[in-house]
């Protein structure tokens, strides 16, 4: 194994050529340094430093892996285009932040896949490391290249790139992977034998043991190439979240990052069952941490980082069962140290007012609500159990408590949507605006804003809407225009629309199959990078890449799937059953809601309810 680290003089030259050199210097407070280790893990995030450093999952894995005896886990982020150019021109390889080592020197290189639009950046990182893209082209001399994160619930579009794909919670699974690879290296095992062993770990999917079959241009089934591999690799979950290790001493970056604060993860999973929400379906069941654990974690994190903000993180923090006991205690505790507490999402309920007043006492964050749809019918279709009354009461409470701005999130292009639902968004904004202006002048603040933030619905695998077509771009643009017109005259309203062109590619890769790997490589070779950044997105190059492979984006994004059609992602098992998704789709079409599963089991795990629901 080579042990070359980047020459400091060369590093300086590279840094002098880029816009934000501090992205590449490492050496942050709490960075882990190790002198003796026999196993190296490169934890890679395929986006820029400021985003990757904000990812809570990476923070957890960095801690968990480095806590292993003899294992050194280092970090690497996607280089921005200026650094990619500088490295390419200098003939230098991409390096980790800790020891400035090339990725090829590691035993395992693991990528976190949080969104489909980062896939080209994975290729950038492999290319700059001299590592072949396809798993089939790599022998034992290369590191094992693996991936994890929510995107792996449909691993197919990127399956050929990875030796192994990790489904679900990584805390235990990643350590088992490391131990297995370490033992295999000690025994001098060849790669096929190692892959066989890896496939025995619960949660690990080894794509090379499976071959998808296509007929008449469509996916029909998957053949298993080795009988020993599980028929459907199953998503891994940690059963006792409260006892699961957390982030340890969190890194404190030198430059500002996107989520520049400490966060305690109050729970994993969400019980609401919003039908568009992939996270809601693939992180089940709900597992909570005890409030005492959270309080001591918050205290400890503030102590070891010096941050002045703590966020209570989860998919739906307002649903945390002990929230109203936790909030006052954590706010009191933190305000003594002038540390503010923020909630990424709020549940619109009657106790909100007290919480809002509490939160006022320290620092005032922005207030965001996500009704997601403009009419009650539409909200019933998507199972977003929020009523207009709830929302208006919540914003009135907030405005009375001193807030004078609120952000509302909506989606357009939802299944069964009509123009009435679009105009309903504007009507809701008008009512929210009315709630503010109805307050007596002396009771309300100045400079009122209601920001209406609208994204385009992307049908996701493992949701009740996984069979639905996406609205075409023309249709989305028409609806955006309709909304713009309808919002005229609403006092304080401001409209933000997410560009729909990006959503099409997201829809394609979300529900794609294995044929997309070649499209991805082709697009990369045509210069596609950082596709989630509008200024970098190259729709024409993507269209060419699809054409070059005899495929169209329309087929993936706009085609309605038959309910009984085999779907490429069903090769893996995310625990939530397809039968349940079908039931949910049927109820959606009838605009019938499904209750929060804390109020009674809805049977989403089918026969395996006992194994997974009651933990």
């Amino acid at each position, binding site marked *: 194994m080579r042990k070359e680290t980047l020459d400091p003089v060369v590093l300086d030259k590279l840094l002098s050529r880029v816009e934000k050199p501090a992205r590449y210097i490492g050496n942050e407070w709490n960075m882990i340094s190790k002198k003796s280790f026999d196993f190296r893990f490169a934890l890679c995030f395929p986006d820029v430093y400021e985003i990757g450093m904000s990812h809570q999952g990476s923070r957890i894995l960095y801690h968990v892996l480095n806590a292993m005896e003899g294992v050194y886990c280092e970090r690497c982020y996607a280089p921005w285009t200026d650094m990619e150019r500088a490295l390419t021109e200098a003939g230098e390889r991409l390096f980790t932040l800790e020891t400035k080592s090339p990725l090829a020197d590691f035993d395992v290189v693991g990528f976190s896949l949080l969104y489909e639009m980062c896939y080209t950046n994975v290729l950038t990182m492999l290319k700059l490391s001299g590592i072949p893209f396809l798993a089939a082209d790599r022998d034992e001399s290369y590191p094992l290249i693996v991936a994890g994160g929510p995107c792996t619930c449909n691993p197919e579009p990127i399956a050929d790139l990875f030796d192994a794909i990790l489904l679900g919670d990584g805390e235990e699974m990643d350590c088992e992977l490391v131990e297995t690879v370490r033992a295999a290296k000690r025994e001098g095992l060849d790669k096929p034998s190692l892959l066989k062993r890896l496939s025995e770990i619960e949660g690990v999917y080894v794509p090379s043991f499976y071959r998808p079959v296509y007929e008449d241009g469509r996916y029909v089934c998957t053949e298993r190439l080795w009988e020993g591999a599980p028929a459907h690799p199953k998503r891994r979950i940690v059963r006792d979240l409260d006892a699961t290790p957390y982030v340890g001493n969190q890194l*404190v970056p030198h430059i500002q990052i996107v989520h520049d604060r400490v966060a305690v993860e109050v729970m994993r999973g969400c019980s609401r069952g919003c039908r568009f929400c992939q996270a809601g379906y693939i992180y089940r069941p709900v597992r909570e941490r005890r409030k005492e654990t959270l309080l001591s974690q918050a205290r400890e994190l503030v102590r070891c980082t*010096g*941050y002045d903000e703590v966020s209570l993180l989860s998919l739906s923090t307002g649903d945390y069962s002990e929230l109203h006991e936790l909030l006052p205690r954590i706010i009191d505790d933190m305000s003594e140290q002038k540390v503010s507490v923020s909630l990424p999402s709020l549940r619109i309920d009657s106790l909100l007012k007290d919480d809002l007043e509490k939160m006022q006492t320290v620092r005032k964050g922005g207030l965001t609500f996500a009704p997601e749809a403009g009419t009650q019918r539409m909200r019933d279709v998507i199972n977003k159990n929020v009523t207009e009354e709830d929302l208006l009461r919540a914003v009135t409470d907030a405005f009375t408590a001193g807030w004078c701005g609120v952000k509302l999130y909506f989606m357009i292009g939802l299944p069964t949507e009509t123009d009435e639902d679009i105009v309903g968004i504007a009507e809701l904004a008008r009512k929210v605006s009315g709630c503010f202006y109805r307050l007596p002048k002396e009771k309300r603040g100045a400079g009122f804003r209601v920001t209406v933030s609208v994204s385009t619905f992307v049908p996701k695998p493992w949701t009740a809407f996984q069979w639905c077509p996406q609205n075409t771009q023309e249709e989305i643009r028409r609806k955006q225009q309709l909304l713009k017109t309808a919002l005229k005259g609403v006092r304080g309203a401001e409209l933000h629309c997410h560009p729909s062109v990006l959503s099409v590619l997201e829809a394609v890769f979300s529900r794609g199959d294995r044929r997309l790997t070649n499209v991805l490589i082709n697009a990369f070779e045509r210069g596609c990078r950082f596709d989630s950044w509008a200024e970098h997105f190259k729709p024409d190059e993507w269209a060419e890449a699809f054409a070059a492979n005899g495929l169209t984006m329309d087929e993936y994004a706009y085609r309605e799937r038959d309910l009984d059609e085999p779907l490429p992602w069903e090769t893996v098992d995310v625990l939530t059953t397809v039968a349940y998704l079908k039931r949910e789709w049927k109820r959606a079409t009838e605009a019938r809601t499904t209750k929060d599963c804390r109020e009674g089991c809805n049977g989403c795990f089918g026969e395996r309810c006992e194994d997974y629901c009651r933990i």
Partner: protein
Amino acid sequence: MRIIAAFEKTKELSYTSHLDVQRTLQRTFRRAALPLAYSKGFNPHPKLSFATALATGYTSAGEWFEVELDQDLEPTAFKDRVNAALPNGMRIVESFEADDGIDTLSKLIRAAHYELTVHFDTPVSPDAVFEAVRSIMGPDPVIVEKKTKSGVRPADIRPDILEASVKECSDSTAIIDVVGSLTAAGGLRAETFVRALLDRLHLNGYFTAHRISLGFEGSDRLPRLS
């Protein structure tokens, strides 16, 4: 009590901006569990202020700041506790308690002393470099294109150059010692000095800057530069 202190910023952290440094110090103080005094209001922040900002990319042997504490603390204890919590690349080098009468540092600052290392793209005769610096220090105006809010304008930077001399020079690199005026209202920017030098030599090049010291007036405990 008010503590006045100086930190050095070395190569490792030279790529961080003034705002980054501000955040780093605030987090460091919290890690060091200092008894900080906070401003009042909804958005309390520690009372921390700097004599001046250091440009991103520069290193420095002494950047001065002041911070208010709401309990007494030995200045040496302040220094030790902060140093134990600072990341590599920053270190407190001096600290003392401010006398009651002393004005804020940004009002007392007068000058800055730099060591500039200029790398020339093409070989140069050292004599020409010596001559160019001598001519800059002559009686005539030194006109440089200066970026302002309203665009690029020619400006005379000669009044802001207090001293300049060549310390070392080869045919590729020159090390130049420069003292420039610096107050809250403005002063000499090292990059404009280098621009003037390269203009005179009709050359291109790049430079690194190290701030050796800041110069103040109005207190015996702060460094002076004249």
